[in-house]
């Protein structure tokens, strides 16, 4: 077992221990904490979570695949969330998605090969005054104009 893996396991164990054992209603919250820690849901973590709250693994997977917030694949270092709320849509968000596809070579739900960026689309982040808005990590990019997003992301 590599050091990184062991560290991951220790983190997972500590995180799971903070949740009450056998409480099936806590499943969604537990998976959220795991995703927050690891940036995605590793397969063995889903197994561990299912065992901890005493539900079948199939149920844990059904929950993990139902909610949009969960990712079963490792995600990039920076998560780019392109807001596709109505305001962003009518103020040009679709062009921003296209620009990202051209600039980074990946579309929504995909990760760049170097694991630097994962592109996601979200339905409204409540920052309509800044439309169209892109959130890169914790940075809000406001009033994104066509052809500028790649530069704003610092990818080029």
């Amino acid at each position, binding site marked *: 077992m590599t050091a990184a893996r062991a560290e991951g396991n220790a983190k997972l164990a500590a995180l799971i221990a903070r949740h009450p054992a056998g409480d099936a209603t806590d499943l969604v919250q537990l998976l959220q904490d795991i995703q927050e820690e690891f940036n995605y849901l590793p397969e063995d973590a889903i197994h561990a979570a299912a065992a901890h709250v005493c539900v079948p693994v199939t149920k844990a997977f059904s929950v993990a695949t139902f909610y949009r917030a969960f990712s079963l694949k490792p995600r990039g270092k920076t998560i780019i969330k392109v807001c596709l709320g109505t305001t962003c849509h009518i103020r040009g968000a679709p062009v921003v998605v296209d620009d990202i596809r051209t600039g980074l070579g990946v579309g929504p739900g995909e990760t760049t090969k170097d694991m630097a960026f994962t592109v996601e689309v979200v339905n409204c982040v409540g920052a*309509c005054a800044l439309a169209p808005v892109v959130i890169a990590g914790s940075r809000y990019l406001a009033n994104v104009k*066509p052809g500028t997003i790649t530069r704003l992301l610092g990818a080029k």
Partner: protein
Amino acid sequence: MRFATVRDLETRSERMAAADAHVRRRVLVCSGTGCAAGGALDLYEKLVAQCRKVKLEVEVELAPCGEAKEPLYAAVTGCQGLCQMGPLVQILPDDILYTHVTPDKAKDVVAKTLVGGEVIEKLLYKDPESGKRISKRDEIPFYKGQRFIALEGCGRVQATSLDAYIARGGFSSLIKALGMKPEAVISEVEKSGLRGRGGGGFPTGRKWRSCVEAEGEERFVICNGDEGDPGAFMDCCIMEGDPFRVLEGMMIAAHAVGAKRGFIYVRHEYPRAVERLQKAIADCRETGLLGERILGSGLSFDVRLSRGGGAFVCGESTALMRSIEGNVGEPRAKYVRSVQKGLYDKPTVLNNVETFACVPAVIREGGEWLAKIGTKRSPGTKAFCLVGKVRNTGLIEVPMGTTLRSVIYGIGGGIIDGRPFKAVQTGGPSGGCLPESALDLPVDFDALIGAGSMMGSGGMIIMDDRTCMVDVAKYFLHFLLEESCGKCVPCREGIFQLHAMLEAMSTGRSQAGDLEKVRRLAEDIAASSLCGLGKSAPNPVLSTLRYFEAEYRAHIENHKCPAGVCRELTTFQIDKDKCTGCMVCVKACPPEAITGEKKKPHAIDEAKCTRCGACRTVCGYDAVQTR
């Protein structure tokens, strides 16, 4: 500090009210989503640090103080409304509202205003018509005509401070309610005529009564903070800006229906709301405002926060309850209503954030007070998010019955760049688009439904002539297509087909007769879907068809998109008479399809053009036209 009795809380409230009255000057920094994204929290830190640097004593928490001390108090508040001009800073009692206060302006604000007592002209709101600077918040047209009930404390008090909340009479409604019989609380809410602010408009009092009458030992109170409608962030603002008020509303409901446990279900896209509510819940537990025998009364109540998983359907009550139980959020048919069999099949009251935020005011002022505000069938006020192609984007609250026109043109200041108004979209993906002819409709539950839209949770998206209604309808269908949970066929397959038909229209692949097919399928989906999501899914299509049929026909019959949005049906060209040769579009064009020299008309190379519309957006002379 623990409030064992009502008297304990009252004593603390009096002390904090006195401390609040002693504040010499307060600086309130807005931390609504728009302002925060613009650096408001950084600005706050800088303001405080700068004050300390120049030896200006500043309090960051409202603290019981000695009589002589009159502190300067700087606090972060929830949304102050005018997001368009953020970050916002209010200085009281001077009554100054500063706009666009980026963090680099902290030094100036401290030196000139807080120390020098001088008003910084260029940070004041500038009236677009007269060019005059306006200092007082309530004289800005955006704030005129508004009335705050649900947003009463939002943007006015330190959002995260229990002391600040009780200093302004917070939890006095809880005290009053605890002194009343549950039955009396319910009848007060019934008298107020308060209807659910989540969009359904179901009478709140009647819901509470049905819950009490339902059989069962245990009951639950749930606050729905899964605000999923795109373009709506009122509930987010309330949860972030006045979290204790939401809890107080829930406690009053718990007393009324006899619930011991409550849940707040918050959308995971709202991390700040989660954080502040969690802090508020922890503070309430610590002080005994949540827990066993609250304030020495018979009420024992605790609240747990559940973070949503990013599924729109979970805003639907039965799906939300399944999600709290740790399951996938699939709705069920409502043969039995959730007030009778809700969470864990127990009687459950579920109201949305704004409804709970209205409850303390109803108890404090009495039901009849609210019933006199607004319209007869929709009493009270409603919070809206005014967004889209409107000049003043922001969070507003108006009495029911206010016309759409006065909201859009009075408060909103009209359309960006003076372009023509085309439609207003309300009700999110379940609502509809209303045209110019509907602008004099009063905002209330029934009038909007009558016109083919609905109130919804409060998103109000303004569209101009450069918005294509087929594209808007397609946008909502795409949204719902992704969010349909897949349980019932009409919704899962029907929306898929409907979307495909609109996609065909917007790419020039549709044929005569398609309009009828769209209409028929839309009606079938509405009639046969299992839950509200599917039943209302065709609304955006049906309402745009009702008012903008000609635009659909242009797509189908002429393969043209009059608004110039659908790329396959649009060709851009530059009007040589209007073009001034300013080079702005040349620089903005991503595929570099525009050529031209300075001061000479430019031209678009159609072969290179991707029809993204960037040139049209940036052109200040209306020279880019569609053909």
